[in-house]
């Protein structure tokens, strides 16, 4: 039995402890904002926050999450839109949108650890998140906009 908090809600998991968090979120909790893109920590579509760090839900087994605090895209704006979400909308980042939950969660984690990231910081932090629509320049602009906003 694994106990964790997802978006502030206490949850108890009794299934197969090897199941990755991604499928627990999507299939069991219906939190489908977190996406599947590769299942192998190669694309970042499944990025969520574990405590304050970005993790790939597709390779994070439930067994590793006893006591964890998970935040997904649905939980990010619980108290109004997060500054990163606002910046994303202002810069109009998304195209198809599929990767963007992962991008946003990754950016949130980056700004938590580095409130004023340089170009290199951004490039480094975002290099694991694929956007096939190639919205990368706008992602950079939105991260900078969000960093400016949170001064």
């Amino acid at each position: 039995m694994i106990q964790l908090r997802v978006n502030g809600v206490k949850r108890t998991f009794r299934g197969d402890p090897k199941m990755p968090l991604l499928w627990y979120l999507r299939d069991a909790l219906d939190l489908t904002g977190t996406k599947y893109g590769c299942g192998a920590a190669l694309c970042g579509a499944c990025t969520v926050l574990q405590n304050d760090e970005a993790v790939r839900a597709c390779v994070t087994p439930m067994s590793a999450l006893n006591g964890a605090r998970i935040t997904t895209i649905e939980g990010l704006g619980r108290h109004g839109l997060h500054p990163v979400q606002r910046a994303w909308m202002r810069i109009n980042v998304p195209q198809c949108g599929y990767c963007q939950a992962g991008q946003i969660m990754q950016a949130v984690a980056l700004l938590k650890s580095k409130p004023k990231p340089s170009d290199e910081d951004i490039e480094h932090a975002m290099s694991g998140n694929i956007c096939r629509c190639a919205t990368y320049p706008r992602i950079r602009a939105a991260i900078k906009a969000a960093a400016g906003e949170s001064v």
Partner: protein
Amino acid sequence: MTNVDIVNLSRRGFLKGVFSTGALVLGVRLLPGSAWAADQLPLAGATVDSTVFHPGLFLGINPDGTVIIVAHRSEMGTGIRTSLPRVVADELDADWSRVRIQQAIGDPRYGEQNTDGSRSVRYFFDTMREAGATGRMMLIAAAAKRWKVSPEQCTTTLHAVVHSATGRKLGYGQLASAAAKMPVPNKDALKFKSSSQWRYIGKKFVSYDLAGICTGKPLYGGDVKVDGMVYASVEHPPVLGGKVKSHEDRDALKVRGVHKTVLIPPFKPPYAFQALGGVAVIANSTWAAFEGRKKLKVAWDDGPNASYNSPAYRKELEETARRPGRVVRSEGDVEAVFSKGGRIIEAGYYAPHLAHAATEPPVAVAHYHNGKVTAWAPVQNPQAVQEAVAGELGIKKEDVICHVTMLGCAFGRKSKPDFVVEAALLSKALGRPVKVAWTREDDIKFDYYHAVAAMYLKAAVGQDGMPAAWLQRSVFPSLMATFNPNQDYGSSLELSMGWNDIPFAVPNLQIENGRAIAHVRIGWLRSVANVYHAFAVQSFVDELAHAAGRDPVDYQLALNGPARILNLGIKDYWNYGSPYSKYPIETGRLNRVLEMCANQAGWGKRKSGNGWGMGIAVHRSFTAYVATAVQVEVDHKGKVTIARADTVVDAGLVVSPEMVVQQFEGAAGFAAGIARTGEITATNGRIDQSNFNDYEVARFADAPYETRVTIVPSDAPPCGVGEPGVPPFIPAFYNAIFAATGKRLRELPLSKHNLAA
């Protein structure tokens, strides 16, 4: 506002309650039904003219003033589900904040729904204007009747009709029921706004779904959940056309959550959009189905395509490209010029298979019930789903209801609904709703691949370096083999993509195509044959310019020649599905974007070499004219950074400038990925790549640091914009590498080459 209702669907009723009583729905009887159209109208003939206006199918107004507009095209990131409704709203004079968008199911009465080929605005701009103008005229007629004045004395302001003389005003909601009783005006009586009156067309706006995307709303195919649904993952034959010899599922069934396995029969040629066949694992979660599959043991009978090996096939293509082929366009006499000797320049180019690798792998939910199928899927063409599912299950096309979710990218992959057919077959076998989810490995190993291609070009150049004769030959397995197994030459569709329509003013010209057999499913991928054709042609032009010691921009302007409309003299020239009279090839527009692009990029201001270089290319595709200049830096280790890309596009009238800019920014990054690392190969018929570790796509630092897009102001008919950004980028990028390093690369992708100093 978002589309949550797509997910919380009672199986067929997600449009129920869209309209209250008294709504103006153009053809009110059509509407408040389960599927917008399907249940309400007797189906007319099997097909409907592609752009005919069907009143009632696109627009309705509720008495509370809410305007509901149907998006009948699929949203995969181009913004089409916003931009076409914006056109309706503009002509209707509707307040956008009171518009709701309703995604259409597949139904021929909407006209053409295949969101592919960069044609949504080209095909439907006029139709959407007609829909809006019809509604506006009916609202005016209703108000005029109430005020007992003539409609000519009335006009509209935002979401209201006004009587100019008295200033009386009635909101659209107040008029909805009365307007619903007005006769539908004839098409030729419609009055349109002038372009200066447009509120939305040509102005900046963002996607209807922007907030939903940024907050993680369930919008996509995989987000659909239906009561009683089970999950399936399918082990496909590793070689196209292979069959299951035997399979052992004992260990798979031991995996917690796995219910059973189901055999899917192999397809019958042509494979078209049929399921590939194989063994499906059925489970109570996606993950359990994936895990169960790992424990399956299947022995395959591979069949003849097991002979497919990329290195040998490449050799064949390249040899074919050096031999005379089928002539598809000929002017003057190239051989006569070549035989005279003089300066001859020739080059061969090669581009491998590519996979689409849409961010969202194929996924679909289907429910077979009482001889009917309801499906939910991220598809580009829901009518193809109807046809393919009906064909496979032996039911009527109109008994297949296909709900279209949003698409996590598509690039052409999702116009091929084999994965929806799988879901429907399994649902029929299991008697309950099934979600089929492909893994990334499935996606990459079982794609409809972009064709591998070899091109050969030869020119005889005069004293001034300009060609007196030009010969080009391309060889690639045709995507038409998908539908016709005997297709062994390029189709007119592929040859019309940047090959038989080159615009050069050369007196002796011959264009050929060689024979090639497909051994994997060939499909169309964002800009299709333009990818390899533009790569070869625009690289060769750069080579000729350098051989002549001339500036590549000046050279290309001279090669394109004076401003004129090309008379290709090709009977089956495809012209991207648009009439040539409306969308001819205009070299003046081509040269203008080239000059503007050179200007914007600062062409010639900085000297290329020593690891910095700028390259340029220009190409017409999907009727749009696009020039791109790329600036690269190559360090001593051979690492290539794209500092900046400049793109100038003449796409005629542009409905959504912001979204067009986004499409060209995205195309630059997408093309950078193709050029850098895009390569699919086969060994013994099996695809060698599997996931983003060995099929790499553009990541953050691989795309241009910056892409500057300029749209040429124009009121020419609207052109395609989703694809045309890709073709010129790749040769511009390679030309930039030549400028920076002096190394001429003639093979994609870049990862095959070592640029270390």
